């Protein structure tokens, strides 16, 4: 087995046993990136030099007999909408193509404190708006499990590099499924934490009430290690919850008690979900039942309006958040303009791609005078109804199990011209963002065309430990997830 194929938890053990050095680990992952990037295209920027410097510091610490933190020496990739000081951060948009943040996002500060070598910034849909990473201004990313297919999105780069072995773990962001959907398509694990668990300071805002940063890994334990390192209250983000967290990773091997009730909401297994996906997810559910857990059919009827409410609320917030891109304070400015108004309009029209324009326009429309009640306020009412349904459901069950996506990865270009078809892939994931709930996607076998299927587990708010233990149980039962893709 090559070094880049090892999990973060194995690498951490080998580092401490001095079987491997941090420099050897980072070097192996970086050379894997060099060998696969041409085919995969997961990175916007590779930061090899800086990563090797961090790894060398970890080795010095180990040589001096000092304690190191759990992610020390573990190569990690960071989505390109997360600000990195003095390192270009583009959100895969032309309008930020020359933006060099003067500060770090809080999660990046935490990774640096851990001494995790950051190997690069990953490609994404422009401003995280998309489900295939095809709206990126920078490049296309290919799914390492089948290079003709999309990696999903918007965190497609972060999922693809973990699947390709050109990063051991990574960070993405999830506003409507942007971590879980690409995790499902690329056959890796992706966690969207409870809203308010991970600081959004330094995350380029899309829809602030829905956005949440979260980790990718090839195993549940690796994903949990990153989550444990990045969560916590942050004075710079008032929406982070004021609470303390129990340690997590050491508890993952504790099985869930017999009699744990797992809800299967019928709305997530309806029309529009591929048969092979339903079968795979039901087979997974049966493993829980065999272990003494109880499967309960539940109903979350407002799910049917989840996409509607999501696209209204997310676009409304985006239209407001993206008004800051005006060619004055940072980013691209158009070359020819007569007055201020013209400068704004041309800068934005030249700087944003079509999908971003559509979302800004939808958001502007639903907030505009005369329409706000019929669209935005109604969507907010549906959001509250949906949240209440989850509150009620969690009186009856401990966890909820659904498919992550209704299908498997589609081919590049297949849905680019049809926004609605693209949006439909988010149908099982957007409801969690609307409710602020945590969810994890884990690989759940392969479909007929040899493409990964994703299983989504949902727990009550702030109960990520239960969620990760349930995911770890499944991983164990099936004898582990697919590792690095052969490329």
């Amino acid at each position, binding site marked *: 087995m090559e070094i880049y194929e090892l999990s973060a938890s194995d690498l951490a053990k080998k580092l401490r046993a001095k079987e491997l050095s941090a420099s050897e680990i980072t070097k192996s992952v970086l050379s894997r990136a060099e060998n696969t990037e041409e085919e995969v295209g997961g990175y916007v920027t590779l930061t090899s030099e800086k990563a090797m410097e961090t790894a060398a510091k970890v080795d010095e610490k180990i040589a001096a007999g000092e304690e190191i933190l759990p992610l020390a020496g573990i190569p990690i990739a960071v989505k390109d909408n997360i600000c990195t000081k003095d390192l270009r951060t583009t959100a895969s948009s032309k309008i930020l193509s020359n933006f060099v943040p003067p500060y770090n996002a809080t999660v990046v500060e935490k990774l640096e404190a851990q001494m995790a070598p950051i190997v690069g910034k990953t490609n994404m849909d422009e401003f995280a708006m998309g489900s295939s990473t095809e709206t990126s201004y920078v490049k296309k990313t290919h799914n390492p499990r089948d290079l003709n297919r999309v990696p999903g999105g918007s965190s497609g780069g972060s999922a693809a590099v973990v699947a390709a072995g050109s990063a051991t773990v990574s960070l993405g962001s999830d506003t409507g499924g942007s971590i879980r959907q690409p995790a499902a398509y690329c056959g890796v694990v992706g966690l969207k934490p409870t809203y308010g668990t991970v600081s959004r300071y330094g995350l380029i805002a899309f829809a602030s009430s829905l956005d949440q940063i979260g980790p990718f890994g090839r195993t549940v334990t690796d994903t949990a290690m990153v989550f444990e390192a990045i969560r916590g209250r942050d004075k710079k983000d*008032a929406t982070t919850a004021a609470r303390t967290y129990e340690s997590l990773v050491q508890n993952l091997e504790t099985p869930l008690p017999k009699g744990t009730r797992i809800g299967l909401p019928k709305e997530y297994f309806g029309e529009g979900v591929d048969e092979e996906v339903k079968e795979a997810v039901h087979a997974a559910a049966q493993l829980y039942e065999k272990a003494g857990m109880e499967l309960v059919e539940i109903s979350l009827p407002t799910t049917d309006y989840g996409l509607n409410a999501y696209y209204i609320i997310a676009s409304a917030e985006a239209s407001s958040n993206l008004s800051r891109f005006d060619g004055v*304070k940072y980013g691209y400015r158009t070359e020819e303009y007569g007055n201020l108004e013209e400068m704004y309009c041309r800068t934005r029209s030249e700087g944003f791609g079509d999908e971003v324009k559509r979302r800004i326009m939808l958001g502007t429309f639903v907030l505009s005078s005369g329409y706000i009640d019929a669209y935005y306020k109604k969507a907010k009412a549906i959001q509250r109804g949906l949240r209440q349904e989850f509150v009620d459901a969690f009186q009856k069950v401990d966890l909820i199990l659904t498919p992550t996506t209704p299908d498997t990865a589609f081919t590049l270009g297949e849905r680019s011209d049809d926004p609605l078809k693209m949006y439909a892939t988010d149908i099982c994931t957007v409801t969690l963002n609307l409710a602020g709930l945590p969810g994890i996607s884990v690989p759940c076998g392969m479909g007929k065309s040899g493409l990964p299927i994703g299983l989504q587990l949902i727990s009550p708010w702030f109960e990520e430990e239960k969620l990760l233990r349930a995911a770890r149980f499944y991983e164990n039962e099936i004898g582990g997830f697919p590792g690095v893709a052969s490329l």
Partner: protein
Amino acid sequence: MEIDVRRIAELSKLELKEEQVEMFQKQMQNMVDMVEKMPEVAELEAPLDRNNAMILRKDEIHSSLRREDLLKNAPQVEAGCFVVPKVVE
């Protein structure tokens, strides 16, 4: 609901190329048709989560980023200020 994409673009401070207006009009119309299918639902109170409160920081002055670092990304700067086209005639 029929929409006027030119008007929405104007409100959004976007200029659409003439050859793109038809495409955007159609796509935006489809999007609006999709999202507007929502039932009437009773307005629920937004519940406050007392166990996981969000706390505003105190209104205190702290040192922050340096002015020159913040201005580094601006397209045009003069004497420590952002430069924009003349606004007042």
